[in-house]
């Protein structure tokens, strides 16, 4: 299949990307708008000797991932916003036990049952520790089908490299959009999983746990993990910059909003408006330096999100009051058009 171009939905591309990355274990529970992922896996995984289990709940699914991952295999689950809330306990345990796993969130509108339209309402939950305790998690935010496929493959490597849960954060538009996709056969990276539970033949027993009751033990563990998160901050930042070098208005947007904002920036440039785009691909670690670099040249920032303002807080932290940071949001399933954003750009630029 490698090198072949196919037409696929984002959800299917995510599933196929996982298979290409060597993931053979999928556990999940139905929820719209991500159902194509488990459906695809239910027929694809048996073809490659893998296992698909439709779990009784989101909670069970993430704990099946927990058990499989503890054995050293690549495992994943996917869901959408309300289901991801249910998985938070398990994500915290994965972080605590330092187990690699992929969690895909194809976001829908919230809070509560919300709706099934695309939304970016789970940025805080994904990047600020949706579960309890003091942990971080790598978060990738693809903005098209090819990028979703590629980032899923990368996510499995990074999960193993850092022994951490990794999230791919998409939304209903990404999941449901059909686009051409070039399949590839990634080079299999080998990771030492001496910690895995495989039966203790020829070695001392392994224990995988997240309880550290000894005096000062958990503090030491959390400080060690902090170093791991610092390594992620230093090495794993990914960000797309589009016409940002000479931009007067630096637009910051991720995922689907980033893709729409890119089209709006193109329209703006055609009209001689000096807008540029910064599109964070990793949401944790957040591309602070890219934002800070833009603050030296741009007069003003505009953050565009499909929510009421979440990533904007990270942009403001990075800008550190050096420049004004405006916000335009469409929550609850609202999706801005490029023309709509173009008007917003004009409004923002008049403030300069």
């Amino acid at each position, binding site marked *: 299949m490698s090198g072949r171009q196919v037409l696929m939905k984002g959800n299917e591309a995510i599933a196929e990307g996982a298979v290409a990355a060597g993931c053979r*274990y999928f556990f999940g529970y139905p929820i719209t708008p991500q159902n194509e992922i488990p459906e695809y896996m239910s027929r694809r995984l048996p073809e490659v000797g893998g296992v698909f289990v439709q779990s009784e709940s989101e909670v069970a699914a993430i704990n099946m991932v*927990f*058990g*499989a991952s503890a*054995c050293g295999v690549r495992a994943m689950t996917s869901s959408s916003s309300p289901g991801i809330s249910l998985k938070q*306990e398990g994500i915290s345990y994965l972080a605590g036990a330092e187990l690699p796993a992929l969690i895909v969130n194809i976001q829908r509108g919230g809070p509560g049952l919300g709706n099934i339209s695309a939304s970016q309402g789970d940025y805080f939950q994904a990047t600020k520790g949706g579960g309890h305790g003091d942990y971080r998690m790598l978060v990738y935010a693809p903005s098209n089908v090819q990028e979703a496929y590629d980032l899923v493959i990368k996510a499995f490597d990074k999960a193993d490299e850092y022994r951490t849960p990794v999230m791919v954060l998409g939304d209903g538009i990404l999941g449901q959009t059909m686009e051409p996709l070039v399949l590839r056969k990634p080079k299999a990276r080998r990771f030492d999983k001496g910690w895995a539970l495989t039966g203790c033949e020829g070695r001392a027993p392994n224990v*995988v*746990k997240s309880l550290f009751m000894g005096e000062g033990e958990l503090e030491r563990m959390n400080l060690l993990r902090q170093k791991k998160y610092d390594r992620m901050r230093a090495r794993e930042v990914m960000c797309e910059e589009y016409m940002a070098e000479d931009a007067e208005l630096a637009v910051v947007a991720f995922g689907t909003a980033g893709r729409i904002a890119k089209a709006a920036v193109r329209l703006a440039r055609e009209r001689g408006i000096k807008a540029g785009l910064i599109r964070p691909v990793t949401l944790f670690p957040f591309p602070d330096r890219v934002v800070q670099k833009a603050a030296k040249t741009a007069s003003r920032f505009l953050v565009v999100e499909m929510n009421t303002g979440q990533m904007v807080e990270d942009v403001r932290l990075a800008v550190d009051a050096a420049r004004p940071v405006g916000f335009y949001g469409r929550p609850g399933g609202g999706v801005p058009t490029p023309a709509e954003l173009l008007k917003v750009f004009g409004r923002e630029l008049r403030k300069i």
Partner: protein
Amino acid sequence: MKQVFKRPDSLKDVPFRFCPGCSHGTLHRMVAQAIDELGVREKTIGIAPVGCAVFAYDYFNFDVLEVAHGRPPAACTGMKRAMPDRLIFSYQGDGDLAAIGMSEIIHAANRGENFTVIFVNNATYGMTGGQMAPTTLVGQKTTTTPKGRAVHGEGYPIRVSEMLATLETPYYIERTAMDCAKNVIKTRNAIKKAFTYQMDGRGFTFVEVLSICPVNWGMTPLEAMDWCGGPMKEYFPVGVFKDEGKRVV
């Protein structure tokens, strides 16, 4: 001289830190003996729950995974699907399995997952200090039922083995008790049988063990064993509820 008694290889050489009289130490040993007798220590992965048995990895001399409260049957599902030739068992208390984890146990049993669950029923939450469990007897005083468990508002204790036995898929379900030495040996044999079925790939196996918690019951160990053999067994009868290996075709 022939050695006739020793610590099982499947137990580490450390003292148990359970409360005086608690069944966990003896039951850990029975599990370890069963594994030794089957010669599968190096192929075994145990699951420690949340509760008194969370420290199972301090005692068991084989690979152990610690899992969130109530979720061991889900984690066992993931493990067994990834490593079908390993002996995988969860060791869960009544709060873990019959309250917060009721969904996971029913569905794992119903899928016929090929692992073993050892369900320690001592009619209380031990680790957190003796609150009412789903298996607390009617009238039994706990820290959250100071006047005794009342049927009105708190319901009857749940008979998990009987409930799981209504499912078609489980292969073997037995309830035993730790109320006397003879029954402790019966418990070990039941665990060994469950493990043997699992190694043969037969499907879901479940051993419920009526256990004692003298500290939280407010009894001496001897009184607790009597209570286990008396009122507990009256409500939770011991016996085999399902054994497909014995079914005459």
